[in-house]
């Protein structure tokens, strides 16, 4: 092979390409893939549908709470529900998730109550759950950082000597297409590869890093990066909940049995703005959004369920009602979320007593008291 024949053409947006693993087409046709056979019961299918609709409802509610000033910001998962529910439902209790700030669907699968996700976006805390309780680490805003944490965690699993046993777990790191440019992410790939660590790198390629399209980050499809680091990479239809489930399940199982890391590229689309402060009309075409609307992750499951007679109109209505009820509860709980007391900023900065904290905390309290003493 000559150097010239190996040179990649500048990457252009594509439809996912021939390597794309798909088990449910956008039209809702069930197709088979030789490497990823998947048996799902009607019950499981309905469960996945329910998950997708409920998390979309939670997300929509959070967007509207932001518009009404109840939240300062929200990073919507609209369009990425299948990538998150498919991969999230592949997890077991012993796995550990390292999310970005957009993994509301995965959080949902890990049993993190939706209200707990809202705190940091409302500005009342920096996180709302105990990671160990849910096998779901804190949201990470600094792009790419968590991929190294996930890798180190996986190296810990290795050292526990549990791989290949029922107690084995895997780490799974979520990150975006933009994140693949960060040094941290590339270092995570190197460390994981060298250690042969039990980790799944789950990249949601939603085609955008704020205003920058994928071609600003890569000349080749992202899943192919893995090969250069020495582990397998696979591209899955990120809007196909069944394919995401099957592929992530296989990758996790590989990790748990000591076969090393896998990069999963979930090929999807960020249907909304980057966050509620972003205005995508400045940098992308409505027609792209329209084209991706036809690949909606929920519609195809619904079409399949209906066509195969696996779910009735009553079922669909009950799911919609449930999503509405969850959203209504969330709205109520969000409005009731109290502001932290001002002194909360001094809490938990250190694990052990710290004299400067004590000093500043006392001075702060005394300062606040001076206001109360002022006669009206």
């Amino acid at each position, binding site marked *: 092979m000559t150097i010239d024949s190996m040179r990649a053409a500048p990457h252009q947006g594509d439809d996912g390409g021939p390597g794309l693993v798909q088990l449910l087409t956008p039209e809702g046709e069930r197709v088979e893939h030789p490497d990823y056979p998947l048996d799902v019961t009607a019950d499981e299918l309905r469960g996945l549908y329910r998950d997708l609709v409920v998390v979309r409802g939670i997300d929509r509610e959070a967007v509207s709470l932001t518009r009404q000033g109840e939240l300062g*910001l929200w990073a919507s998962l609209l369009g990425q529900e299948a990538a998150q529910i498919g991969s999230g439902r592949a997890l077991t209790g012993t796995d550990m998730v390292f999310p970005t700030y957009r993994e509301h669907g995965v959080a949902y699968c890990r049993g993190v109550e939706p209200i707990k996700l809202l705190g940091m976006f409302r500005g009342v805390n920096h996180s709302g759950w105990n990671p160990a309780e849910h096998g779901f680490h804190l949201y990470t*805003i600094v792009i790419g950082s968590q991929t190294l944490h996930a890798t180190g965690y996986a190296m810990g699993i290795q050292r526990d000597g549990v791989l290949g046993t029922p107690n084995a777990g895997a780490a799974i790191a979520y990150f975006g297409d933009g994140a693949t440019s960060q040094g941290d992410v590339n270092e995570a790939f190197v460390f994981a590869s060298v250690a042969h660590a039990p980790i799944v790198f789950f990249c949601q390629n939603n085609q955008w890093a704020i*205003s920058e399209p994928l071609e*600003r980050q890569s000349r080749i499809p992202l899943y192919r990066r893995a090969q250069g680091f020495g582990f397998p990479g696979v591209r899955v239809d990120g809007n196909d909940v069944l394919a995401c489930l099957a592929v992530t399940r296989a990758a996790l199982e590989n990790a748990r049995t000591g076969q090393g890391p896998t990069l999963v590229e979930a090929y999807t689309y960020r249907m909304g703005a980057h966050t509620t*402060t972003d205005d995508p009309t400045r*940098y992308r075409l409505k027609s792209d959004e329209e084209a991706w609307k036809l690949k909606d992750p929920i519609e195809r499951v619904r079409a399949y369920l209906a066509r195969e007679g696996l779910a009735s109109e009553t079922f669909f209505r009950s799911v919609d009602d449930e999503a509405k009820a969850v959203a209504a509860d969330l709205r109520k709980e969000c409005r009731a979320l109290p*502001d932290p007391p001002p002194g*909360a*900023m001094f809490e938990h900065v250190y694990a052990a007593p710290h004299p400067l904290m004590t000093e500043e905390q006392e001075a702060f309290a005394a300062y606040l008291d001076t206001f109360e003493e002022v006669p009206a």
Partner: protein
Amino acid sequence: MTTLTLGRALNEGMRRAMEEDPKVLVMGEDVGRLGGVFRVTDGLQKDFGEERVIDTPLAESGIVGTAIGLALRGYRPVVEIQFDGFVFPATDQIVTQLAKMHMRSLGTVGLPVVVRIPCGGGIGAVEHHSESPEAYFAHTAGLRVVACSNAADAYTMIRQAIASPDPVIFFEPKRRYWDKADVDLDAPLPDPHAAKVVQPGTDVTVLAYGPSVKTCLEAASAAAEEGRSLEVVDLRSLNPLDIDAITASVRRTGRCVVVHEAPVFGGFGAELAARITERCFYSLEAPVLRVGGYSTPYPPSRIEDHYLPDLDRILDAVDRTFGW
């Protein structure tokens, strides 16, 4: 005179520098088509093209590292770090390379790179979007560190930073981006590292830079109503520091309060306090007092007003200098 927001003034300053020197480049995340998340680079890519206004891959170390390479090849990159909290991946390139290359090369290699960093809190943001990391960089020899506080300064200071033969860390007060002021686009350029008395006074010198300057001016107005005269000095430059202007003021007033958003402990105010004490020991009626963030990570936004120095905390410190 034109009325510009601070953000727009920066834009006009960069535009002018790009017109005057074809080697000036702008690079960073989302700076091109979007014009930056704060729109500070709005329209520059449209007018100067993608070769000069580069939407970079998402990697801060890469951004600063390649800016260094471009500078080695004769360009003058103006780098945007999207938010203060995201400069840290680039810290290695800034501290170990950018700051030291001129000295290591015995002066043969110059790195005219500007690193623009929107800084400070008060915009109700999630974590990592409200930090004030200036002390790290002021502590690093080889970097010039400046902080603008208003539109008129923003316009001249960014041009001077770009013209500087040394690397410049350029702090922009993000919550003041939308504040308007009259800007004389043809005014002569002042000394880029001179401090400025923005409010003359006689009782206490209040030192500030960046976003805190406006807060201090408000405190000065409030103090005036109570018959106390604050002299507010906008440092504009942290490194080099205009220590002569500072000492002149403190010798006149005999009292000094330093205000910044960064935590007080190990903060830039400590350097000011030490220098002022050395130079003005016999003029001081009270120790130099510091008002700033607490020694905690930046808090959740709903309580950030308690963390940020405000009018009351500044006036409280002023009072304390009189009670000594």
